[in-house]
């Protein structure tokens, strides 16, 4: 099954206890796939063991990009988290591992 990594790239940012992760398609075809397949539910499921949520999703068609805002994702907040990666910089890599259904198989 293709992964987000195959068709898009990501970066994670932090604000307090909220992580935002961009998902940017490499091309038009990839944009169609992430726009259709990379739903809030799918992202929420992938981050369920890390983030309390909720998850919000924004579309930026002119940049062929999505922006996910994931609340309660940073161990209570960057400045007080016990985590090894308090900023959640590595969470973009988790987004990239999400598997997307083959075309037409959704």
């Amino acid at each position, binding site marked *: 099954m293709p992964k987000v990594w195959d068709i898009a*790239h990501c*970066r994670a*940012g932090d604000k*307090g206890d909220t992580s935002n992760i*961009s998902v940017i398609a490499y091309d038009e075809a990839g944009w169609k796939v992430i726009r259709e397949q990379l739903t809030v539910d799918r992202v929420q499921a992938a981050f369920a063991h890390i983030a309390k949520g909720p998850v919000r999703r924004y579309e930026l068609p*002119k940049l062929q990009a999505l922006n996910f*805002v994931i609340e309660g994702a940073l161990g209570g907040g960057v400045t007080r988290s*016990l*985590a090894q990666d308090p900023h959640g910089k590595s969470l973009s890599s988790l987004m990239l591992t999400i598997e997307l259904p083959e075309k037409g198989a959704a």
Partner: protein
Amino acid sequence: MRPRDVLRIGAGSSFADDRIAPAVELAERGELDYLAFECLAERTVARENLTRLKNPDKGYTPRLLDRMGAVLPACLKNGVRIVSNMGAANPPAAARDVRRHARDSGLGDVRCTVVLGDDVAEILRRQPQLPIMESGEPLEALLPKMISGNAYLGADVICRALETGAQVVITGRVADPSLFVAPAMHHFGWRYDDWPRMAASTAAGHLLECAAQVSGGCFGDPGKKDVPDLARLGFPFADVTADGGFWISKVEGTGGRVDLATCKEQLLYELHDPAEYITPDCVLDVTDLEMAQDGRDRVRVWGAKARPRTPTYKVTVGYDDGFIGEGQISYAGIHAVEKAKWAAEVVQQRLADRGLKYSEVRVDLIGMSSLHGQPEARPEPYEVRLRLAMRTTDRKAAEAVGFEVRALHVTGPGSGGGGSDPIVREILAVQSVLLPRALVDPQVVVKEVA
């Protein structure tokens, strides 16, 4: 070659401990008009406030003189003006020491102007009813343990500082993009309510505020997203025109890349609703923003929009949040993970037997599940590093965590190696409130010949 009729603003740093050489390169070869340095993370001002309380001569960014000493010769030679928030909790002391350093280095008298008024701790004490943005609860509960309260000031006061003719402008807490908006406002004479130009310069500032993150840093993935000559990664600059057009680029011959991929990642970095990125200067909307490659390592950006600024300043409140104690030790080979888990249980038992209390405990298996969790779903690694981190209000209890982990060398499961020295961190946490603008008084002070 630098195009004519543009204002060129470089990004010299993205945090207090950023690399220095790329900023020197920008100052020497970038043909810049301005060089801006962003050096304050959320809790940095709180930390420096504590420093200033212990020593009234300090409280600015610790690497201030290393950084300024490195770039000042080229900036003075090439007429590049510097704007930075390296003043942290003590901009006047920062200006004094920069000027002293310049004089002692034979660079002559450097005119510095400082921006004051971001420190609103005393104002907050009189506003206990303000709701905390993160929790909705009144600020009152935080006030007894408050260490600092700093408003994110905007480009207007930085612009006023530039109008004094200063070679160097030093601020405390200001919004990161405002460090870049102000030079453009000052140079082109833009009005502070010229929303299309506030939008463009805020977008440019946002793209530049993390320096190398738009020119190939925090980006590479070998074979998939390659970054040429990453070791010599260059820092970026923006070329801005009077009508608010702008391009992002970097110095020719430096490592890294500036293209649609790097610019898109940075545009969305730390942005939530793309229609509502709130700064002290405006409410930026990037939903119609577009980019195009315009030559090698050069991207044109247009289509940013802005609505009028909000009636409040965002204020970061730093407060004492106790301690985190930490220790680490490694296991390898057969039963490595089982030994690490056993060791974690032993340490927690020993701490409990000593009567020590912790409000939160974290057990990490580094190499397996410390970043993305789910140890049960991960393949067993050949070697693993155990990390225990615990929260407490008692410094002794925090020290005990690392003490007990290190003692595992001789009193834990077999063949544990490489135990860390105990780690104790004093936690300065932050929360935010919104403060009406009328209660804040941003000021500029010129530091003349000492």
